């Protein structure tokens, strides 16, 4: 278990976060089947806690990716792509966990400023469609269905206004890269302090080797794929024939 302790609140603030993650690296191996990240921490105070209740928001964000979103429509009786919109940057993974319903613990201005909710995390400017909103909605809908975007309201446990913990499940279809975990403390729907740390998601071992070879030496990779496939096919049939002949 990799612990990481780093109070990051700006000086002069009365509250700051001490937090840790169950792991700071996620290794995609051949039998990778998703991973659960435990995020826990405590609120450090130099003064007694204020009256207003404390809100905790935890987000995990995958690397950004430019997307082409296409819309199907019926043309000549068949359903085909008719319109495409470029989304400049949409995170490949995004999870938001909170201690209470989202709107109760943060204002939309603060959300906009820190880009916390899923729609705020997607950047789409200069689109060619008259209804660009439909396209960003589609991104959110499709990725939510795939388990890549998660809104987890009321899943952060907060004890005595001090200790908090939550767990976020990373699905199996993760993209490699540096993932950002952020923790926000809010009071009166305003962000008081925040904390962030990185999670490295990388293919390792054979997966790494195959992926690198395919991208760096594509011709050799292609020839090797053919060779391995031919050998595997040939030996499987030889083994099978041997078993049958006995």
């Amino acid at each position, binding site marked *: 278990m990799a612990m990481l302790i780093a109070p990051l609140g700006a000086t002069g603030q009365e509250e700051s976060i001490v937090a840790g993650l169950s792991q700071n690296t996620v290794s995609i191996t051949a039998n990778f089947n998703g991973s659960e990240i435990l995020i826990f921490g405590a609120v450090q105070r130099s003064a007694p806690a204020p009256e207003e209740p404390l809100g905790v928001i935890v987000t995990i964000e995958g690397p950004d990716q430019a997307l*082409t979103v*296409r819309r199907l429509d019926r043309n000549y009786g068949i*359903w085909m792509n008719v319109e495409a919109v470029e989304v400049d940057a949409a995170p490949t993974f995004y999870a938001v966990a909170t201690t209470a319903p989202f709107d109760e613990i943060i204002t939309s201005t603060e959300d906009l400023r820190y880009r916390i909710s899923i729609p705020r995390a997607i950047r789409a400017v200069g689109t060619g469609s008259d209804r660009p909103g439909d396209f960003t909605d589609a991104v959110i809908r499709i990725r939510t269905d795939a388990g890549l975007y998660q809104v987890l309201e009321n899943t952060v446990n907060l004890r005595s206004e001090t200790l908090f913990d939550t767990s976020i499940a990373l699905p199996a279809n993760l993209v490699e890269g540096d993932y950002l975990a952020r923790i926000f403390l809010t009071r009166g729907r305003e962000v008081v302090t925040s904390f962030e740390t990185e999670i490295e998601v990388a293919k390792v071992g054979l*997966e790494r080797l195959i992926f690198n070879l395919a991208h760096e030496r594509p011709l050799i*990779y*292609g020839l090797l*794929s053919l060779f391995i496939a031919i050998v595997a*096919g040939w030996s499987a049939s030889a083994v099978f024939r041997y078993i049958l002949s006995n």
Partner: protein
Amino acid sequence: MLIYLPIAEVSVNAFLLLGLGGLVGILSGMFGVGGGFLMTPLLFFIGIPPAVAVATEANQIVASSFSGVLAHFKRKTVDLKMGGVLLIGGLVGAALGVQLFNALRAIGQVDLLVKLSYVVFLGIIGALMFVESLNAIRKSRKAGGPPPRRHHRGWIHALPFKTRFRTSGLYLSVIPPLVVGVAVGVLAAIMGVGGGFIMVPAMIYILGMPTKVVVGTSLFQIIFVTAFTTLLHATTNFTVDMVLAVLLLIGGVIGAQIGARIGVYLKAEQLRILLAIMVLGVCGKLAFDLLVQPSELFSLGVASGH
């Protein structure tokens, strides 16, 4: 047992892949077809990105055809000269096909192209095969019906650049086999299939080759064309998934051996009519998907050219 595919970047059950390989292998062993036309749509269905499915299936076909062609070489049922001419056409066709594939991928119409190609070709081949095998069954019931009709290939014999294909016993222009080769090459690249289901009827009905050399010669051509397609996809799109190919293959090879043993117990016409029904079934499913409003009207793709 879940396995993460390094290129497709999805996690899939390894036994599901072995099972799919095995199932398609049984069918291909029974009917003597490559099975690419069934496997590629099945891969779409289990969530493999279409570009990866098409490229990886090409890789798998090379390997599964390899043992087949060796057996045909032993029996001397490969027309190397005809295979060579078909191959030249096939390589040109595959290069064109990959270009077309990439161009359409850029404008977002590749899925439509792949699906339309499937609907059109499976529809035509399935219908022809169905009618033909029904007739054959009817004829065999009548016992000793009229002799099979001679094919008139007059216009083909009028073409220039004639040469002798000794193994096939043909004296024929090189243009028809070149054209057949190009067409099959384009299909191999776009549809992720070997193209045997197009080439075998074309060789019999258009080129007039004797049936005994048709399968060996088409396998010979398919190996080289799909190997070339695999390399083109690997170097331009990085979409060949080695792990996926090997898993499908192991299931497929074992399935093919089982299928070949089942096939012995069925009559040729019965086999053909079953195959025709299956081909029409896949065609119908794809056509249905194109015609009926899908539940999700939007799709995501990684933006290109930034």
